[in-house]
């Protein structure tokens, strides 16, 4: 394994030379000695070349989209266009300060305004805030808006939010953070919301319902009209987790079919890079009656130009970010939408759906698939056949895929499918790359039958072998011990 950057350190080496001091007042004359740091922080002492070699060596240990297919279900690991990076980095955006005079920010505000409008059109919502910086923060913003709506109406008895058992973990965690009790709704045999059960659960204390659509099984929730009627009958609101919006572009506008609030994951659907875990962006759209509760500021437009608009601050949920959200990510999504247009976005979702169904059609002969109807942009296969017949687990299957040059699907999620393998190929994969992935999966099914030992050993050809994450917890080692 690679040394850490600290082990490359050698006293006196420098990676940067700063200009010599034009002002050189001794520190003692500026800041009282009692505040001075006694012992310097032991940051590495390395040359620029040391740094470059070290981090480029580390970069070679990663799987990434340009290296190979990355079918991580519900994460939408599509290709990230390079023009986004070029325009964000090499133009005027990087040096903008959030407190510049509004007159000097007009170009940026215009861009944000147009993005607000375009996202509203895509979802059919009335207005969109760009402030939340991640999907989970979008959920948080949305549930805060539900809370603000009920408080404004005096609905103090509303204490619970209903969430299907197929939901992402961020949904229940978010409701807890806002102070709501979570009631879990079991899915029916079709993998969708159990309407009869929903009717039983909904009462006057219901504040809202969170639904991922298409859901995490890759199925469109067909009964949304009935769901909306049930939820709205007690003045509760329906939140759509937009993690799977990549299936709906130009096909369905969630704001027009009963949803009151939704978030978009710009790092999924709108192709901003995932950054090794972030930054992303999680804008939130709402129907007209919820507009007063959106975070401040919004970007507005009048005859004088574009403004950071705090006019609804009295009713707003306030702020979820120090400034205006992940601006540099928003610029990338803007470019993406402007380049694809209506027809291109529709084509994205069509191809995402076709690619997923094509893979499912091939793999259903080799893997158990609980819900075999046509899927949307992703589907959930599972390793129960291999587990039962060969003693090979989904974890083994995932690790063996790494040997074959692919990232693994999302595994063991959704929780309602044992040994789940949640596969989302995305629209940017070609027929040939889908065939290559399918071939790898078929080989793995064969290897599971013929050589299960090999499967337990996998991965073999990766930079490290199977990593002991139990040890990582039991012998917690979160920082390098410098100088030991």
């Amino acid at each position, binding site marked *: 394994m690679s040394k850490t950057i600290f082990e490359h350190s050698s006293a006196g080496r420098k990676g940067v030379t700063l200009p010599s001091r034009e002002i050189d007042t001794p520190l003692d004359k500026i800041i009282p000695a009692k505040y001075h740091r006694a012992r310097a922080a032991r940051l590495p002492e390395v040359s620029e070349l040391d740094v470059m070699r*070290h981090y480029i060596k580390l970069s070679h240990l990663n799987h990434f989209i340009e290296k190979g297919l990355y079918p991580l279900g519900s994460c939408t690991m599509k290709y990230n266009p390079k023009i986004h990076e070029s325009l964000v980095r090499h133009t005027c955006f990087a040096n903008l300060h959030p407190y510049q005079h509004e007159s000097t920010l007009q170009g940026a505000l215009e861009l944000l305004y147009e993005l607000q409008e375009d996202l509203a059109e895509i979802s059919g919502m009335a207005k969109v805030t760009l402030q939340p910086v991640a999907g989970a923060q979008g959920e948080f913003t949305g549930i805060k808006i539900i809370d603000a709506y009920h408080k404004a109406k005096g609905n103090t008895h509303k204490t619970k939010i209903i969430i299907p058992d197929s939901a992402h973990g961020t949904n229940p965690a978010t409701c807890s953070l806002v102070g709501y009790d979570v009631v879990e709704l079991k899915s029916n045999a079709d993998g969708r919301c159990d309407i009869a059960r929903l009717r039983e659960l909904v009462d006057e204390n219901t504040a809202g319902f969170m639904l991922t659509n298409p859901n995490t099984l890759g199925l469109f929730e067909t009964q949304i009209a009935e769901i909306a009627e049930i939820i709205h009958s007690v003045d509760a609101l329906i939140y759509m987790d937009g993690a799977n919006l990549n299936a709906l572009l130009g096909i369905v506008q969630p704001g027009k079919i009963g949803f009151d609030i939704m978030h978009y994951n710009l790092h999924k659907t709108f192709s901003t890079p995932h950054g*090794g875990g972030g930054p992303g962006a999680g804008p939130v759209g709402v129907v007209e009656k919820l507009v007063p509760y959106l975070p401040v500021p919004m970007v507005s437009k009048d005859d004088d130009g574009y403004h950071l608009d705090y006019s609804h601050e009295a009713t707003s949920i306030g*702020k*979820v970010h120090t400034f205006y959200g992940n601006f540099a990510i928003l610029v990338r999504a803007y470019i993406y939408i402007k380049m694809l247009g209506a027809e291109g976005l529709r084509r994205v979702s069509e191809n995402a759906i076709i690619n997923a169904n094509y893979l499912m059609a091939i793999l259903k002969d080799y893997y158990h698939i609980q819900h075999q109807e046509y899927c949307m942009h992703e589907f959930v296969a599972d390793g129960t056949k291999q587990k039962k017949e060969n003693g090979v687990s989904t974890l083994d299957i995932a690790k063996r895929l790494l040997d074959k040059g692919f990232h693994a699907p999302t595994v063991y999620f959704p929780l309602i499918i044992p040994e789940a393998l949640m596969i989302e190929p995305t629209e940017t994969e070609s027929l040939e790359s889908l065939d290559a992935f399918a071939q790898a999966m078929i080989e793995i099914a064969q290897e599971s039958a013929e050589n299960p030992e090999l499967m337990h050993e996998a991965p073999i050809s990766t930079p490290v072998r199977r990593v002991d994450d139990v040890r990582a917890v039991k012998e917690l*080692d979160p920082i390098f011990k410098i100088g030991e």
Partner: protein
Amino acid sequence: MPYISNTDRDRREMFDKIGVERFDELIRAIPAKFRIQDGLKLDKPLSEMEITNKIKNQTCSNLCAQSANSFLGAGVYDHFIPAAVDSIVSRPEFFTAYTPYQAEVSQGTLQFIYEYQTMICELTGMEIANASMYDGASAIAEAILMAVRKNKLEKALLPATLNPEFVKVIKAYTEGVGVELVTIPAKDGLTDLVALQQLLDDSVGSVVLQSPNFFGNIEDAAAISELVHTQSKCLLIACVDPISLAILNAPAESQADIVVGEGQALGNSMYMGGPLFGFFATKLDMSRQMPGRIVGGTLDKVGNRAYALTLQAREQHIRRTKATSNICSNQSLCTLAATVYMSLMGKEGLREVAMQSTQKAHYLAEELCKIAGVSLKYPDTPFFKEFVIKTPKPAREINEKMLPRAIYAGVEVGANELMLAVTEKKTKADIDAFVTAMKEVCHV
């Protein structure tokens, strides 16, 4: 069609395999009445050349960023970023990967996060750090929530000297779960220690300290800590400027229990205030109460050193309603920039950045005070790289009169008060030009 490989011929081949004739058969689960009838109303698509022209000619021509002589700060700072930072951060190996769920093909990401966690602990003096929060504001909010989990005390004290934008975010994050926020009044631009003492009792679960505070002033962290820790359960949350830690006391030395802050200054461009990233560090005995992802060292099955996400049982994808936070995506790439930045700067370089920033800030303060009617608002209070002046004319008027000179004077923190930030990037000539302009603007 941009970024889609498959042609209509490919689609037909795939339809054959699936067993359908047309695309619509695949979405038959969507009731017809729910489908968009006549397409989305969006602008017609632009090619790569056209969008480039639009951004360069239209968007950028309505922006002024490159040439301005700016003294704006208040949470986002224009420090120098070596070119090698972007060279690493712009590698697709890092930026098109996602959360390192599959450790065996994510060692690059996992190891840099481990190194980042180490650097944050080295700067702050703490024992464990997470992989990042969204920003400094949400990091404080999460720290307050962690304190509540630890000691079950639902009152938190926030200083009046805390960044007001942070306060708004903290309020949004903590009000739902019933945390009571109480403000500690300020005196001379610092936390009022007498008032703090009066507010402290055994119902207080945490006290937040920001130093340098919103106004740039250096708080007496040791004195605050001593007061806070007279309450045995109460936790001290210190919010710090990471650059300042190259020359100022590590929060651990004043017995902070949780250390957080805004990390943008470490190698990340300002981008109108986003993306930012929050760092979050604490002591080992609170590791299981922490929010966010944490990377730990371990071994692979043949005994090689390796890294993995650890303590995941705290997180939303496992613990759901009982998770320590709802955070999933974080600000990973910003922490890569910070890690490369801190590696390049090293022990001496970061100290030099901090020294030149504070030296130049003090030089500016001194020169401005020579202008009639200009004075420091907190003349007897030590500051780091940011300070507040009283102005003889309304702050808004000064800012507007400076615009044609391509100067962003400062953040208006009162009708006749400007807050100014100085980094190592300002030359003496920049500062002198600004002072000359201030003389003219204040006395025409």
